[in-house]
């Protein structure tokens, strides 16, 4: 193995003219680019020595081919110096902080007075600054800043006693000096001379590094010409060549420079020289930054602004964020996702088509040589095969072009590398954007399947926030053993069942798993032997059947018995079910409604299993304790097997929701109607009260607001709630919609109410809908009508259907929700980016403290108690109640 080096640091500085000349391989002398034949001219900005651009040619300078030659810099001697736009602020500061004649830093009066002699004062400041710089760099920076500000104010040089004038900067690059009456322009030559005079030791006090960045280098005398490889020309289909924006800009600069030089040599009038000088300044400024304020952006022929150096670095698609912090990668795939309840949560279904393109490099050993030979023989088009073979000397053989793969397979020996197809069991990374938390990228084991979609287990939808309405996901194949090992140990799905956001499972039962578990474990469910065998087979149970709960006249088992088979024998748990609300509420063992779960020694004795027991994002639930106490792999086992049994229950039984589930009898309808009539009357009463001026305002609110608040809160919301209660009263408690809402599988009682009874008040910004025409939202009501239906109250249910006016209001309310989501995603996205950027370097040191990379302490003990939230019990380091339950729950 070759020696490996690490980059210890990156130093930034300014290139000096000498360095630029030394770096250069070509002095640019001519503004011509191509000659008559379209061949690049030597000593132009397209000089071939700046880098090879045609494939196959070798570089004149370094002798490398296009792929290897990094390109080489040239240089351009400017006829007159020009200010570097990016350093204007620094130049301005330096001119103001130093003496115009001797170049020394103008030490503030107080220091001079304190130490009597300016030289001594400077010496003292230097000592102080040196101390600060080594120990408190940020403080030193602040000190420099104040010193500089103080220096601006000094009007007489403490060293040479020269009088100082005020320097004015006219943006972007013009400097003036306010001498007595007149304003004198300082040209770059003068500025450069002044900057040259500043002694290096004084510069250090201002925070500059004279070794790597002398201030006079901020005024450009020699311009480096970047290599061709960073500004490649594009050959269009027509054969015409199109040059990069930078090349255009460089050509402008060279041309202007040439003209300027000629005019100077010819002794042209000053005005013309100045004008050209100015033009050169403009071109060089826009070459660095084409979005500089106060400068019209340089445009390409068709009016598109040029993309010059600063634009290449800046922003989301710039070099830093677009190419350095994040890169495009090989060995990745993207496809639509679809569900597969029969694969494990740690698995991902990969289409064969994808598996034949993505490869894993595998080194040939005497243990795998037979297998790898088989892959090589299968070749790139037959799965499982291989796409490339790499010989020990590094030669890569593309199997697509190998005639006799059998012969090749024979030649491979230990030490070769075969890039074989993806096969079952390979570790891959799976990702869904937006990647908001670490569970957005998890490792899965490959399972190659027919079809063209990626298949994933339904229980991993919550961490990815995925559904199957067309979502696509990305897949990456780690190429090194280290990467695969880390992926397997740290990123595998089962390692992320417990979320670090709140100590609780983010992976768990959702939707049908919950409905199924509920139906299976309900009191009324009795299972015949056939049922039991089928269900246990779905869960891949191997072992004896339990004793039936009912022996005669026929053997029957309960669902609770089946669940108990999979619980560890020492597991104790008690807690309420999700259905334990309202009428069905229970909080102790005596529960008529079967809504209080009791598990003793691994036997589910009472209570139904629903969202509160196995749901995702349910901390301190039965499933959470199982995963915490019996390990992540037990959690994965539980989901892979027991959850399949829950689904099987629904498969056998059938579980859908229909229109009839939300139909309520006529009597209920009448009751709801009378509720509505009552509400409308009450609303009318309040409105009339307000009109008469007899409405008592809520303190701090106007009468108008009071009316709205009372209508919304007291009348209309109550009307909908009452309607909902009536509907629920008449609905069959075992209809599927109702089961789903009650068990927490899907939907809420609000959804049911809206479907069966009444949709309710539509709102925009928390108010009843009132904007639109003057004094009325729609033309269907009288101006100033404040009655519920005129202000967006929807009395119909979704089942009955909305009348046109109601439909309009509902659409208006719905639109607000859409806009809200759109705005929110961008806002919270930016907030998260800032949070990540501010916090990403923090880590826990071996002593338990949280530190920055420099080693300074943020927290002496992480979270004040050193507990990992992911392993905590909903934030608690230890739940004593749970410990007692674990140990003694079986008898308490």
């Amino acid at each position: 193995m070759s020696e490996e080096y690490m980059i210890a640091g990156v130093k930034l500085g300014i290139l000096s003219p000498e360095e630029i000349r030394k770096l250069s391989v070509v002095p640019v002398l001519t503004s011509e680019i191509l000659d008559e034949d379209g061949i690049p001219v030597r000593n132009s900005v397209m000089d071939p020595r700046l880098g090879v651009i045609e494939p196959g040619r070798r570089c004149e300078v370094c002798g490398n081919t296009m792929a290897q030659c990094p390109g080489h810099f040239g240089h351009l001697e400017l006829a007159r110096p020009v200010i570097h736009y990016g350093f204007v602020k620094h130049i301005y500061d330096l001119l103001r902080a130093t003496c115009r004649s001797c170049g020394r830093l103008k030490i503030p009066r107080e220091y001079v007075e304190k130490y009597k002699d300016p030289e001594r004062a400077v010496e003292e400041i230097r000592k102080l600054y040196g101390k600060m710089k080594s120990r408190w760099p940020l403080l030193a920076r602040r000190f420099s800043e104040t010193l500089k500000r103080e220096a601006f104010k000094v009007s007489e040089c403490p060293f040479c006693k020269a009088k100082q004038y005020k320097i004015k900067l006219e943006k972007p690059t013009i400097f003036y000096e306010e001498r007595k009456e007149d304003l004198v322009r300082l040209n770059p030559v003068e500025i450069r001379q002044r900057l040259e005079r500043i002694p290096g030791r004084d510069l250090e006090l201002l925070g500059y590094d004279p070794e790597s960045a002398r201030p006079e280098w901020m005024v450009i005398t020699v311009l480096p010409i970047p290599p061709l490889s960073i500004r490649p020309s594009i050959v269009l289909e027509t054969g015409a060549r199109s040059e990069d924006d930078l090349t255009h800009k460089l050509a402008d600069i060279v041309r202007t420079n040439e003209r300027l030089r000629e005019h100077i040599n010819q002794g042209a009038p000053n005005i013309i020289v100045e004008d050209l000088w100015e033009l050169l300044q403009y071109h060089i400024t826009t070459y660095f930054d084409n979005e500089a304020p106060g400068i019209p952006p340089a445009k390409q022929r068709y009016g598109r602004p040029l993309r010059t150096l600063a634009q290449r670095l800046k922003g989301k698609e710039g070099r830093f964020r677009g190419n350095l912090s994040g890169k495009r990668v090989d060995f990745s795939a993207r496809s639509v996702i679809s569900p597969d309840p029969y694969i494990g949560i740690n698995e991902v279904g990969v289409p064969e088509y994808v598996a034949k393109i993505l490869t894993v490099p595998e080194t040939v050993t005497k243990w795998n040589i037979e297998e790898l030979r088989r892959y090589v023989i299968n070749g790139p088009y037959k799965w499982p095969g291989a796409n490339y073979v790499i010989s020990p000397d590094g030669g890569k053989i593309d199997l697509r072009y190998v005639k006799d793969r059998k012969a090749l397979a024979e030649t491979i020996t230990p030490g070769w590398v075969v890039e074989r197809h993806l096969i079952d069991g390979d570790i891959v990374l799976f990702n869904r954007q937006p990647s908001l938390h670490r569970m957005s990228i998890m490792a899965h084991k490959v399972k190659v399947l027919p079809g063209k979609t990626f298949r994933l287990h339904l229980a991993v939808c919550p961490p990815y926030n995925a559904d199957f309405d067309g979502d696509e996901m990305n897949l990456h194949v780690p190429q090194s053993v280290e990467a695969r090992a880390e992926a397997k140990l740290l990123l595998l799905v089962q390692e992320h069942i417990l979320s670090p956001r709140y100590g609780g499972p983010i992976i768990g039962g959702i939707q049908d798993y919950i409905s199924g578990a509920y139906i299976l474990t309900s009191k009324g469910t009795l299972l015949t032997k056939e049922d039991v065998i089928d269900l246990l087979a779905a869960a891949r149970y191997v072992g004896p059947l339990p004793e039936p709960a009912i022996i005669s006249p026929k053997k029957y088992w309960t669902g609770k018995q089946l669940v108990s088979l999979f619980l560890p024998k020492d597991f104790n748990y008690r807690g309420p079910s999700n259905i334990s609300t309202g009428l069905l509420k229970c909080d102790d063992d005596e529960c008529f409604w079967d809504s209080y779960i009791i598990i003793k020694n691994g036997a589910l004795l009472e209570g139904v299993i629903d969202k509160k027991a196995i749901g995702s994002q349910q901390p301190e639930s039965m499933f959470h304790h199982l995963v915490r106490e019996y390990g992540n792999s037990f959690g994965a086992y539980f989901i892979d097997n027991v959850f399949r049994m829950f689904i099987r229950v629904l498969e056998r039984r059938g579980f859908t929701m229909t229109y009839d589930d939300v139909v309520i009898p006529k009597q209920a309808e009448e009751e709801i109607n009378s509720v509505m009539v009552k509400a409308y009357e009450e609303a009318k009463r309040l409105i009339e009260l307000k009109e008469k001026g007899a409405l008592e305002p809520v303190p701090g609110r106007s009468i108008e607001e009071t009316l709205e608040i009372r209508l919304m809160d007291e009348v209309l919301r109550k009307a909908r709630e009452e309607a909902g209660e009536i509907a629920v009263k008449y609905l069959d408690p075992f209809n599927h919609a109702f089961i789903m809402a009650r068990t927490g599988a899907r939907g809420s009682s609000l959804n049911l109410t809206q479907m069966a009874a009444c949709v309710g008040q539509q709102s925009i910004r928390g108010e009843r809908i009132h904007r639109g025409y003057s004094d009325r939202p729609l033309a269907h009501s009288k101006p100033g009508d404040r009655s519920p239906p005129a202000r967006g109250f929807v009395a119909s249910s979704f089942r009955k259907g909305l009348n046109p006016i109601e439909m309009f209001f509902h659409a208006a309310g719905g639109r607000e929700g859409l806009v809200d989501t759109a705005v929110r995603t961008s806002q919270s996205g930016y907030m998260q980016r800032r949070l990540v950027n501010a916090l990403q370097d923090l880590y826990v040191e071996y002593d338990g403290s949280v530190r920055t990379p420099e080693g300074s302490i943020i927290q002496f003990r992480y979270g004040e108690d050193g507990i990992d939230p992911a392993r905590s019990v909903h934030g608690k380091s230890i739940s004593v109640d749970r410990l007692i339950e674990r140990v003694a729950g079986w008898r308490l």
Partner: protein
Amino acid sequence: MSPGKTGKTGIDIRELVESKCPYLPPKIVDEIAEKTAAKNLTMDEISKIVELACTEYINNLIDPGEPVGTVTAQSIGEPGTQMTLRTFHYAGVREFNVTLGLPRLIELVDARKIPSTPITYIYLDEEHRHDPEKAKEVARRIEFTRVENVVASVYITTGSIILELDPDIMSDKGVTLDQVKSVLKKYGEVEVVREDPPVLSINTGIVDLMKLSKLRDRILKAKIKGVKGIKRVIIQKKGDEYMLLAEGVNLKAILKIRGVDPYRTVSNDIHEIERVLGIEAARTMLIREMMNVLMEQGLDVDIRHVMLVADIMTRNGSVRQIGRHGVTGEKESVLARAAFEVTVKHLLDAAARGEVDELAGVAENIIVGQPIHVGTGKVNLYMKPYVIPKRGG
């Protein structure tokens, strides 16, 4: 019976813990002692519980190298997408609006100088907190009342300004006629024209109508009583005591008001807290406010994450923003700053300063393509696979 001893068995939990794992925090030991005592447990069971507590505690400790910063950022950022954008929400009372949800969270991490809805939570001392009347007394002392607040109508006549006061509002705000009179005294001679409803005339002696109307405006703006900046005060029952909610902030003045409990009274302006109560209080308030926002939205986020954000915001003794003018902007690494925002400026400034990027943080190492120094990258362990260890050595 000593609190450490357990009911029947009579084992001293503290001794048991001391022998098994002395590192267990005393708070947990106390909890075990208390809760095991309440249940009827055997000696075996108790020692099993203690044993489990010991191993669990060790297992639940955070691993060295864990990138807690990133985990925190994600744990707070991810639920951000689920929050409502609705700026205004009623905070229990309908009387005024409080910014909550995502806007408030952004405001907090931004460390904005002025919160969009400044509110002071005023707790009362022992004497005033049980009686709504006494609480009202304090509220009146705090609520900023101007002359215009108690005036029903104003007239200008030659040389004098006539104010008609509203007796209902006056009694509601607890303003007496004498108080108004004494405030008005300095503008001229005050004369009571009528008693009920009270009408006052101020003889200023100014004839110029322009000047007089200017003076009228000044008089209307004159303070009668209260704390500057507090627009409205509301009495609220919290638990078994009464407290005040005030719109507006002015902690420094409010803390001095008689009847206010200075130990618990806070405002939601983090910078004010920092100025008045200090940086530790600001940290606590940041945590409290952020948890409050998250909780109110029904989002479950571990407090440890919020604490880390608050700690990094306040660590250098002043409240810093999460962003380019605060935490990120003060990072040592040029590359990390350049990769965040204002790329070009950071690069040029670093060049002028001749800065060296030591490549210590995450972003820098990603940029140069090296392993990062957190998590598994933190471990500096080199394996020499070809060195065969000496046997028995």
